[in-house]
């Protein structure tokens, strides 16, 4: 099981802040994860529609979409940040 956490409009569109899911072995990168989640329902498909704007963090550190997710305890998906 992998813990997924969502923030801002990704959280709102998916309809939850976090969940634990089993990922198929074919999901090897952050990009693979986005494409897998989009098959899970309309909410996910809507939240992750524009894949290139979704930011990914693994174990609370920013990663690129093609970075491997092997060993991730916590994967976060969120929009571009707007703090400060």
């Amino acid at each position, binding site marked *: 099981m992998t813990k997924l956490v969502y923030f801002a409009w990704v959280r709102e569109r998916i309809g939850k802040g976090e969940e634990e899911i089993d990922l198929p072995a074919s999901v090897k990168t952050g990009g693979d994860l986005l494409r897998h989640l989009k098959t899970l329902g309309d909410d996910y498909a809507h939240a992750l529609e524009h894949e290139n704007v979704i930011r990914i963090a693994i174990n609370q550190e920013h990663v690129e979409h093609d970075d491997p997710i092997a060993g991730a305890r916590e994967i976060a998906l969120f929009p571009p940040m*707007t703090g*400060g």
Partner: protein
Amino acid sequence: MAGDAPVIVRVQTDDFDAAAETARLTGDGDAGAIVTFTGLCRDEGGMLAALELEHYPGMAEAEITRICREAVARFSLLGIAAIHRVGKIAPGENIVLVIATAPHRHAAFDGASFVMDYLKTSAPFWKKEHFADGRTGGWVDAKESDDRAREKWA
């Protein structure tokens, strides 16, 4: 200098006190320059009732700390503080505070500016607008100008 420079990082719902945080950073007599940046919630011509600030607990603090340490090393700062508020924030209220201390002014200016430019684009915070007419606006869009501001330090 970089090794033992104080780094103060907090994410909190309460307001902050720039004078009190400055006093915590200074005191050893080496500092010749203090630059303080305060970011406030604008009222957008009276349209805005509040901003709602969401963050990724844990990662937000870790990311700001990483940015602050990089600023200390890069500009030989004597100290750095970065405090970011979350929750609902009304127009005119404080959102973020950055304080950089250094022997000379250009390092202090660069340190505070660097931390803000990276914080804007790398620290996991998101703003949502609530309007005065009762409507909940959307999430604030990230600005390309913020990405460009960060790139100038690369």
